[in-house]
């Protein structure tokens, strides 16, 4: 009888995750030896993220599989690591001033973001169900803590608890689905699952279908797609705003990467069954997200519902399941990262301690008091809506192209009609900013790092919108 062979360890493949883990632990330890001023931790965290990106790009001869095919470094994962690094860096930069304002003085904050990023990297690079589960858990646990990091705030506690309970529930579904998939195909490795499906060596078809459905539920929870989105508005509202921004970009992108790998790479041969389910989920997400957002009066909840609708659009890239689909997924998520962080950065800048200015009507007349901030916010909202010449438009164009290429025209028509609906509530914010008289005074906290985030986000949104060429070629590799 063969012993289970110990897999050879490929440190180079793991380098991004390793570097970041070291920095995460470094931040954690250093926190013990410094005083109340945590700004050195910010610098170290950003350095860590930068080095992670550097080691990520320093790899040739892709794709490289390691750990017997459970872990892969390919263009897909590298692009994702790029997105993660950007979103984590932006989140950290946004946090500095916010934490000072809200009196969040824990050094773990930064290391948790770094560890969460490690989880995301693992998640996006895993080609094995067990590894995927590991990644999801690392990401989720960090997020549970981060959502509740304002210990004295009831909403933050509610957010953390709600997120944790529902998240744990979803994890159960996910694990069950993985078990059933393993039972049906005899492997946890995506490549072997794909092979088993291709050659018809499936133990039991119902088991397989059941597994796929449970996986959709599990992933669906994590990305907040309808009907598994109930937690999103409350958690988004309760979590510290930089964490809200972070949650709606990085971790979601990571789960989508894995979602894509599991369904498009491992189960292309049973596509007709899951495409139907995913189409329903996508359509519901778009409708519920957009219609829900119309009724919101709180900007964070509005953005939460809008992110639900964006998941609907993104799922179309999965449904297209062609090479254009994967490239459009990458592009859309990068565009979404810049835009979302920009919007949340404005939200943070406008707030101050005790007066977070989260109600949309408190934005009345912003354009006449702080025209630049209002203009930036308008750019981000219009990019979320998908108006040229902004990043969101090119992203939508890309995803719709992928779907139309596969003949999913009705789905795309539903999506564009939803886009039109979404303009309504994005315009609502613009109406308040531009077309109403100022209601109260504004006291924006113009911290340099927050403004830098806005600048980066504006640059990214315009660059991806007007000259998307280079990024598109990168995404298409």
């Amino acid at each position, binding site marked *: 009888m063969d012993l289970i062979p110990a897999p050879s360890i490929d440190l180079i493949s793991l380098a991004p995750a390793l570097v970041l883990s070291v920095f995460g632990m470094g931040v954690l330890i250093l926190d013990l030896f410094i005083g109340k001023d945590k700004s050195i931790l910010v610098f170290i965290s950003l350095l860590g993220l930068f080095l992670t990106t550097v080691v990520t790009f320093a790899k040739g001869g892709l794709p490289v599989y390691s750990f017997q095919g459970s872990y892969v470094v390919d263009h897909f994962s590298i692009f994702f690591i790029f997105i993660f690094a950007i979103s984590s860096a932006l989140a950290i930069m946004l946090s500095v001033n916010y934490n000072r304002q809200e009196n969040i003085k824990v050094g773990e904050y930064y290391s948790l973001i770094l560890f969460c990023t490690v989880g995301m990297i693992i998640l996006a690079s895993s080609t094995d169900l067990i590894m995927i589960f590991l990644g999801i858990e690392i990401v989720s646990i960090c997020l549970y803590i981060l959502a509740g990091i304002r210990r004295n705030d009831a909403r933050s506690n509610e957010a953390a608890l709600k997120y944790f309970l529902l998240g744990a529930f979803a994890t159960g579904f996910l694990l069950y689905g993985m078990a059933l998939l393993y039972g049906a195909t005899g492997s946890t490795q995506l490549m072997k699952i794909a092979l088993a499906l291709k050659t018809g060596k499936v133990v039991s078809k119902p088991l397989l279908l059941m597994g796929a459905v449970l996986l959709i539920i599990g992933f669906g929870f994590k990305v907040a797609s309808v009907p598994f989105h109930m937690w999103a508005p409350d958690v988004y509202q309760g979590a510290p705003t930089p964490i809200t921004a972070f949650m709606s970009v990085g971790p979601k992108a990571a789960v989508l990467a894995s979602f894509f790998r599991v369904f498009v790479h491992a189960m292309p041969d049973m596509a007709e069954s899951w495409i139907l389910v995913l189409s329903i989920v996508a359509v519901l997400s778009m409708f519920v997200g957009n219609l829900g957002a119309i009724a919101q009066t709180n900007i964070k909840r509005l953005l939460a519902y809008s992110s639900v609708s964006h998941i609907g659009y993104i799922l179309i890239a999965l449904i297209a399941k062609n090479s254009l689909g994967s490239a459009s997924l990458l592009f859309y998520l990068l565009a979404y990262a810049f835009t979302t962080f920009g919007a949340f950065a404005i939200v943070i800048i406008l707030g101050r301690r005790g007066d977070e200015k989260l109600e949309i009507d408190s934005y009345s007349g912003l354009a006449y008091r702080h025209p630049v901030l209002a203009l930036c916010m308008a750019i981000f909202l*219009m990019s979320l809506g998908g*108006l040229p010449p902004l990043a969101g438009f090119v992203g939508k164009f890309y995803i*719709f192209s992928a779907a139309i290429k596969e003949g999913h025209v009705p789905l795309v028509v539903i999506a564009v009609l939803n886009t039109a609906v979404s303009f309504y509530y994005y315009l609502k914010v613009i109406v308040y900013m531009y077309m109403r008289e100022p209601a109260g005074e504004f006291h924006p906290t113009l911290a340099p790092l927050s403004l830098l985030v806005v600048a980066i986000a504006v640059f990214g949104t315009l660059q991806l919108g007007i000259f998307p060429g280079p990024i598109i070629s990168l995404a298409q590799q």
Partner: protein
Amino acid sequence: MFLTLVTFLPLVAAGILAFIPKENEETIKQTALAFAVADFLLSLQLWADFDLTTHKMQFEFNVPWIETWGINYHVGIDGISLLLYIMTTFLTAISILASWEVKKYIKEYMMAMLALGTGMLGVFVALDFFLFYFFWEFQLVPMYIIIGVWGGPRRIYAAVKFFLYTAVGSLLMLVAIIWIYFIVQDKTGVYTTDLMYITQRLDIPLSTQKWLFMAFFMAFAIKVPMFPFHTWLPDAHVEAPTAGSVILAGVLLKMGTYGFLRFNLPLFPHASNEFLPLIAALSIIGIIYGALVSMVQEDLKKLIAYSSVSHLGFVMLGIFAFNHYGLEGALLQNLNHGLSTGALFLIVGMIYDRRHTRLIKEFGGLSKQMPKYAICFMIITFSSIGLPGLNGFVGEFLVLLGIFQVNLMYAALATSGVIFAACYMLWMFQRVMFQELKNPENMKLPDLNFRELVLLVPIIVLCFWIGLYPQPVIKTFDASVAHLVDQVNPKNFAPGGAVHAELKPGHAANGKSEVKE
């Protein structure tokens, strides 16, 4: 390159305005006007250099933009777009001069106006689907802001409605654009969004053509606006500031008719023929309905807005006559409507500035008080009705001539619209300008000042010019229209066969195209 310069000059001007401190209101207004006038003069240079003998695109400029997708920055101009382009620069300058008295946020206003200018000019010159869509959506934002910030009491409702209506239509067009993109890629193996390339090689089965036609139709029909997609127009017109209404009527609506000429007809000739009865019916309903609703309006701006629905019905009918007369009439009527309706909005704006009301019953007998105003108003009214000697007559006459060759009933119904137009316009004019000067508020109204005369006189001169000697204008259309007539001629697209035949020699002659139904 010159075309790009003219197109983007207003946007550059908007950028320059951003650096002028907002206290220097006079400098801001003068700079904006100077750039707008310069842009108009530069665009006239295009007409001077224009080669009248060819239907081909001129002043072309084509550089790669997003190479991986085969998207180019491709602009060019032909007989169909040239005069619309010049009218856009002309009306932009007029609008800026008309906005001299805007009180609130003058700098932002001028910047929005100029940015709007570039958006509109871009629509008329873009020869790449992606670029076209880009400009098409781009012009939406400044117009939305202009209505929403500087508009009347219900401005927000009107602005959002304007935006959403247009967005729905154009998003459906986006789906069709992507669909065409893959059809072309399937047929030729080339990823491209170049309009010229696609128009020459596209050969789509009728069933697909119908869907694509419908998608483009939605985008353009909302913009025109055709009945029953017109409901945003009265709201937008009534709430928009004067200059916004001028641009809206003068240029934005023309983008819809231009879309039909540039996209629907050449790309889907077969489907265009199939949908002819539907579109003719909607146009005729629009003509009659718009006229009847105009008749009962109490608000001057609303009256003119509904008259636009009626006039644009004429234009659509002319386009879908598919013959030389009809198309030339439609193009000419496009310009006429821009001039006369733009001027009507200016005139209403002038009286609104004085009285802060637009209700017809508030006026009466103004001709005694404001003789210069009365003369201008009268000429423009006649131009809008289509009195011989003025521009409206030539356009309507050509359209009706075209329609008569196609279908007698269409023509008869459309002609009734001309009569209705005379009714509602003259009745309105009578109630506002004649009768007794009873209202004491109207007794102290000052007549037009110099700036207002400068706004109206050029338009009136143009009205007479086109009315008395339309030849230079019509000559500009000729070659392109002849080519377009060929493209939509059923003889040139056997089912499943090549859509695009070479232009037959000797076909470009004035109004000689035969119509076969």
